[in-house]
């Protein structure tokens, strides 16, 4: 079995109008896990459950990447976390905020912090209330990385970043994940391209349940895209779970699991459709199908 950095076992968390049910996943050391799902699918709740920011109704979270599985010590010392929305002390300057936060981390690296500040073009004399959304995202990143976390948990971290900054950030994340220090990265995002680029594992949440979990390449290779031309009335004869998309050029697109390809081709041929292209789908297409 692979060396785990994070294990979630049968996690349940109920709210009045939403429930996270039976989530189990194992994150191997050195991996970047992309957490995707529609709004309200439970991504942020799962992240907060892992961090202990919400109480679990049942289940267990284990962090083998932390000393003593993170049981004895405050796990927040070892985790770099950027929540979906974060309010800083608006009246502070960046310098004061950094100084305030640094007091609580024994592994805080002021040199690295300065380096990041230069790289992210943050002016330490600037008041937090005068920062743009992108600058705030950079500040959150700086605070999350400057104490050399062992586990990075990022909830929509690139929201508000410009395309260049986003690209640089993702590259840096890749680099960080390859260093011995950071054992794993869990990143949630709505942007599939971003997740496909960065994550070597995917966790797709649907209605509070884990709909898919596995290696990104494996997941993508397990799905196929069938592209063909057909009259509309034939589509109603296909199994309902085979969602058919209609493209602008009039072609129909069927996203199905690889083991159904043969059956689908047989069925379509039966209705006289012979010109069928079998392609590899994009992650976005799989996500729409699954989530």
């Amino acid at each position, binding site marked *: 079995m692979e060396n785990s950095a994070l294990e979630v076992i049968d996690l349940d968390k109920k709210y009045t109008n939403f429930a996270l049910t039976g989530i189990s996943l194992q994150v191997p050391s050195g991996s970047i896990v992309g957490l995707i799902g529609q709004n309200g699918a439970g991504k942020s709740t799962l992240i907060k459950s892992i961090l202990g*920011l*919400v109480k679990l109704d049942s289940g267990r979270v284990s962090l083998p990447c932390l000393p003593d599985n993170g049981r004895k010590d405050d796990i*927040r*010392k070892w985790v770099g976390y950027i929540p979906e929305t*974060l309010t*800083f*002390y608006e*009246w502070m300057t960046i310098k004061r905020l950094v100084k305030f936060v640094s007091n609580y*981390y024994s592994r805080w690296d002021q040199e690295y912090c300065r380096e990041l500040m230069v790289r992210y073009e943050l002016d330490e004399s600037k008041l937090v209330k005068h920062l743009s959304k992108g600058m705030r995202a950079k500040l959150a990143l700086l605070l999350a990385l400057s104490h050399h976390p062992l586990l990075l948990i990022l909830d929509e971290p690139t929201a508000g970043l410009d395309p260049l900054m986003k690209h640089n950030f993702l590259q840096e994340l890749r680099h960080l994940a390859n260093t011995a220090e950071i054992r794993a990265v869990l990143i949630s995002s709505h942007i599939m391209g971003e997740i496909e680029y960065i994550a070597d594992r995917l966790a797709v949440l649907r209605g509070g349940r884990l709909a898919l979990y596995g290696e990104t390449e494996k997941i993508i290779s397990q799905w196929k895209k069938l592209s063909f031309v057909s009259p509309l009335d034939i589509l109603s004869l296909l199994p309902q779970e085979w969602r058919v998309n209609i493209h602008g050029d009039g072609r129909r697109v069927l996203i199905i699991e690889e083991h159904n390809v043969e059956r689908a081709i047989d069925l379509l041929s039966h209705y006289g459709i012979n010109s069928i292209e079998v392609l590899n789908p994009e992650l976005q297409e799989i996500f729409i199908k699954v989530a």
Partner: protein
Amino acid sequence: MWPLIVKDMMQNAKALLLFYISALSLPTAYYLIKSPQSDSSGFVGVTFSYVVFGAPILFAVWFIGQEKVKGTFRFLKILPISGMRVILAKSLTSLCLCLILMNFILLVIPLLLRISGIPMSISAPRMVLWLNLATIFFISLNTLVFTALDHKIATQISIFCMMAVGLGAAIAGKLLAPLLAPHGYGFGKLTGLFKNEPGILYFIGFLILIFSAAMIRLAGRILERAEWPDLEES
């Protein structure tokens, strides 16, 4: 804990300064306007209503309520600081600010006025002690109420509780006085009884301190266990 205390002081520096100026100038003005013959009861009355009742609510609003309204409790929650430490820092800041202010008003100002030639009696040490204990109690109570509840509800509850305590004591005194007077019992005599039994007073004082510490501890536990969505108020 120091960074938290410094942060709270800096965050509310303007409000604290204004409060201190008004809290110091009000009793001074009260005494100067009243008359040279007046005793320290004026000071005690104003100090009691302003510092013992008013300050704990104001400090709880500034130190706890504002963190909830602005959502910065969430920021503290992601840092490796225990809820207990946060509450302890806030309670200690409030206590120090309140106790320094009150003792300055009760002891230092009258002393300064006396030195400057204005005849002024200084509050009895026992009175000062009880006012200090009352302040500790109300600060702990407000810390607990504001941590546990929405700050608007907490303010209402806090004001209502304090008014109820004050009014209740006044009404009970008025009602009991005519009943006790014919039998030779009065407020003076009643307190006189306690004067001869310092053990009872120390015991009550000790109970107040224990109860206050328990309220602060409970507030710390509440913050520690608070879930992320509950840490921000609209």
